[in-house]
């Protein structure tokens, strides 16, 4: 038989999945209750049953380039109904982590990010960069002056310093994503073709972009997420976090343009619409992140890995330090507000620098996978 798949199980890969949240994976006995329970699995080649056997057979080549693991929103319905306690939802989550790691380079960064012991290092690196670079360039002033009697953060930590660090950092993140995605899209298409999930021969850019545009409202509205049963209550806080990130991204972009194009410095008035958007975004971020953390703590039957916690606490930390920086400035507590600003920037560094490696990368991979799913016409039933 020519058309056969040569099975080459990778025992290390199995152990890796089991070590990153998929401990229960080998309990699966292939009853397919999960695929039936899943509210969003497509009719054609539904998941996660096939992912479960591929994972328990250690078939790395079938899993990492698999767009299906991204269609899963980890709603937990499969895990709740699994008769064997194999927790397919957690296995899928673990596979996503491994995919992110697979497509993001350099590997040393990816590895550092999955190791709790390296956390202090990840926090110290940006601090060292800020201080060394700041002292060399003189853009970091430990005895900042007041401007018109008020506290201005750029007196302490120059916006030049911010941009010297963060502009290249953003470029690096985008570059890593770009390289990863190029490989990723090619791989998922190959996988979909070989497993009969699509009839499309190649990827045509126009059609793909059209599909992308089509899925964006789906993502924004969380329509997929809301189809979930078990973890439905996660949809709202998740949406809050997503929208606050979007709001804060807009605020940062506006501020950037105002600064360099119109030479307009902060801090803005509290009545400025941009400021209002920033404040609302900040508060939503804190509430959303806090709720997600609480829900994870309450859900003891689902696995939460270090990577889940790293991201959630980072997001909460971002919100809290950001708001504290602002509040302390308004309270005129100079030392404290500078301190929290510094911490805030360390966290922002973590967010951006490690974006392609952390769980947050799902923002990009899931979007692409959903767009691909749309493009591939998989949901369209075969006649």
């Amino acid at each position, binding site marked *: *038989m020519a*058309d*056969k*798949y*040569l*099975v080459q*199980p990778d*025992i290390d890969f*199995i*152990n890796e999945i*089991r070590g990153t949240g998929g401990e229960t994976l*080998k*309990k699966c*006995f*292939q009853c397919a209750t999960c695929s039936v329970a899943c509210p969003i699995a497509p009719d054609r*080649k539904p998941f996660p049953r*096939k992912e479960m*056997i*591929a994972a*328990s*057979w*250690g*078939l790395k080549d079938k899993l990492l380039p698999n767009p299906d693991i991204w269609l899963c929103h980890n709603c937990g319905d499969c895990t709740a109904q699994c008769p064997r306690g194999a927790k397919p939802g957690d296995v899928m989550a673990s596979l996503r982590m491994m995919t992110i790691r697979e497509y993001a380079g350099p590997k040393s960064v990816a590895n550092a990010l999955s190791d709790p012991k390296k956390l202090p290092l990840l926090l110290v690196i940006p601090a060292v960069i800020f201080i060394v670079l700041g002292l060399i360039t003189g853009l970091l002033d430990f005895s900042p002056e007041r401007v018109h009697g008020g506290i201005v953060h750029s007196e302490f930590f120059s916006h030049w310093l911010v941009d010297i660090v963060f502009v290249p950092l953003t470029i690096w993140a985008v570059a890593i994503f770009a390289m990863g995605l190029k490989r990723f899209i090619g791989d998922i298409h190959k996988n979909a073709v070989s*497993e009969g999930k699509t009839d499309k021969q190649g990827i045509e850019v126009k059609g793909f972009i059209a599909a992308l545009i089509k899925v964006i409202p789906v993502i924004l509205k969380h329509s997929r997420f809301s189809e979930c049963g078990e973890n439905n209550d996660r949809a709202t806080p998740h949406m809050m976090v997503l929208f606050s990130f979007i709001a804060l991204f807009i605020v940062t972009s506006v501020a950037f343009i105002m600064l360099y194009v119109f030479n307009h410095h902060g801090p803005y008035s509290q009545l400025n619409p941009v400021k209002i958007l920033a404040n609302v975004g900040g508060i939503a971020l804190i509430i959303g992140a806090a709720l997600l953390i609480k829900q994870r703590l309450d859900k003891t039957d689902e696995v939460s890995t270090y990577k889940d916690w790293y991201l959630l606490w980072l997001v909460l930390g971002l919100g809290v330090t950001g708001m504290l920086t602002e509040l302390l400035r308004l309270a005129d507590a100079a030392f404290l507000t500078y301190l929290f600003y510094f911490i805030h920037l360390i966290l922002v560094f973590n967010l951006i620098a490690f974006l392609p490696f952390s769980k947050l990368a799902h923002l990009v991979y899931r979007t692409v996978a959903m767009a691909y799913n749309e493009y591939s016409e998989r949901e369209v039933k075969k006649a």
Partner: protein
Amino acid sequence: MSKKYGVYICKGCGIGDALDIEAICDVVEEEALPCKTHDFLCGQEGVDLIKKDIEENGTNSLVIAACSRRVNYNTFKFDGCIVERVNLREGVVWSHPREEFPKLTEEEKEDENNFDRVQMMAEDYLRMGMARVEKVKLPEPYLLETMSKKIMVMGGGTTGMSAALDAANAGYDVTIVEKEAQLGGNALKWRKQLPLQAPYEELIPPVAADKIKAVQDHPKIDIRTETVVARIAGQPGDFTVTLKKPGEKIEFDVPYPLPEEMRVDENGKELEHEALMEKYREYNEGRRDILTLDPNGEKFGAVILAAGWRPYQPKEDEFPHLGWGASPDVITNYQLEQMVAEGKITRPSDGKDAKNVVFIQSPGNGTDSDFPYSGVVTGMVALKQAQYVREDYEDGKAYIFYQHMRTSGLAENFYKAAQQDPGIFMTKGEITSVEKNGSGLAVSAKDTLLGENIGINADLVVLGTGMVPVTYDDPTVNLAYRQGPGFRDNEVFDWYADSNFICFPYETQRTGIYAAGGVRRALSVEESMEDASGAALKAIQCLESVNRGISVHPRSGDMTIPEFFFQRCTQCKRCTDECPFGAIDDDEKGTPKPNPTRCRRCGTCMGACPERIISFADYSIDSIGSQVKAVEVPSEDDYDEPPFRILGLVCENDAYPAMDIMGLHKKSFSADVRIIPVRCLGSVNVIWIKDALSQGMDGVFLLGCKHGDDYQCHFVKGSELAQIRMKKIGDALSSLALEEERVAQYEVAIDDYDNIPGIINSFVEQIEELGPNPFKGF
């Protein structure tokens, strides 16, 4: 015993409302028997009423017309009394509700041409009950002159040793007979064994070694190694066993019956008795006849057959698509077990490490059946051996392809534990080919859980072949029985020593011989130990029944035995041939020689006997015949349109209980039918059918168990034999100008209560279409 009769009619449970009890009493009094009625006969007061008659009036032959004999059995059991239960409740009132079968109104009663079918039915049953008590006797126990309570265990493997220990610990003397020089059997040689107790997760060392020590130390267990059974003669409680060294030829080696082709002359005609005997002696030259007892033989009361199994070795060209025969690296699970007992798993072709091992559980080729003689255990063995791969090599990979992965009971935990191993991969699937691939093998499979055709590069392929019972190769038990040394028609069970796996485990087709372990099914050590206990208990049940002169099973406690009126025997040998349990031998002249403790009291011999010389104390040609004759068959002299009368002979094992359940569910059937329970359809003698038809009854049906390869007959052959006899009676009927369709046999199971009304009613309709029996009224 001089009989003093008493008839008691219960009016409870709706009987009194539905029937005219006074009229029934008149029927009784016509026979000049005393009739008493009670509102609630099974209550204390009702029972006391009967007891008072027994004590004060010496009443000893009771007809109790109330509920089915299957309920309140102990309530209406009176020592030293013959009791006949007339089933008015389930059989008449409940199964013929008045809403469907209305009583006659006062007005209707005035016309003599009207009749009440249900009342007629009840009155007939009373007549039949009275007829029976008149004809039956109280049984007396058959006791052996000398009885041995020793148990012989054939086979010294795990099963045999376990059975010996169980029986010995219960206080019985046991002798283990083992053909090898050492006890332990197959399981002793394994690297590891499947778990025996909670949590059922890990492999353990074989328990055989501990068992050997336990049996050797047990004061009640006698061990004979390098010994086999030459013959087992006699009957339960009194077996005479001749033992010998394996391979020896002795005069007490069991003789074999003449094969079919030697029983006829050149023209295909059955030889005369004398000629047959001559040939038989010739055929068994040097062996004593079965009836000659070995004076040096050892006495045993019961036998546990735990002779075990041998591995299934596929024939050279049996599985070419699996590479069997073509590559030395395709082996059986048994061969792998032998290999790992000595060392690591390697490739037989070059002795190199075998780290990638594929276990195949089903040969495929378009079917999903497993290898021959496999079972639940072969799947578990694959799980066990997959763990050997993982034990031997840290990077070892074991693949299991199955069509069925079964684990019994808590062994499911063992499967779960094996599943957890990252190097064990399992999928349902069909292997399409195993081919050479460099120094290794390329395995291809389809219909896998991976959703596509897959290939695996393997070092070794292991076939999950089965366990062949030793009874496949040899009768092993070597019974000195006229029907032959082994179990009859054993091919129905693929030569496993069995009679009905589900209903009667451990009971073979020979009373007193109880099978356990690999000789009975493919099974694990845990299951064989469970089997051993079951067979040991059965052997004990046998001894403790035979010593009191009662039947062992399935009619446990039945004290009757077949009695022969030899003066009229024509030596036709039908009883000897047809007894499903080989209970009857015959002597040189061909006269039957019954062995009462081999008998299971089914009455097949009674049904077979053309001379009708076989009977039981409470069940005979005459007792049933009299019941048939007690049915009133109305003719045109009685009514303008006389009702039909149809006789139903119903097997009391499944069909009769099913009819009781039918009554319980108030399912109705024709009121023109009269039911007589029989021990087994095998016991139905055609004379009863002739009696019924010659007295004008319009049809006769038999209701019994399923027969054939998947039989449910409690006596193995009974319903099948009845079927053959019914076919023959058809010819006799047509010679009397009666339609063959007037006699029919139906198969039912105990859960068929819903279908029985339909079966009976359509038979009645068929008879009504034929019209009345022309002999009616003569």
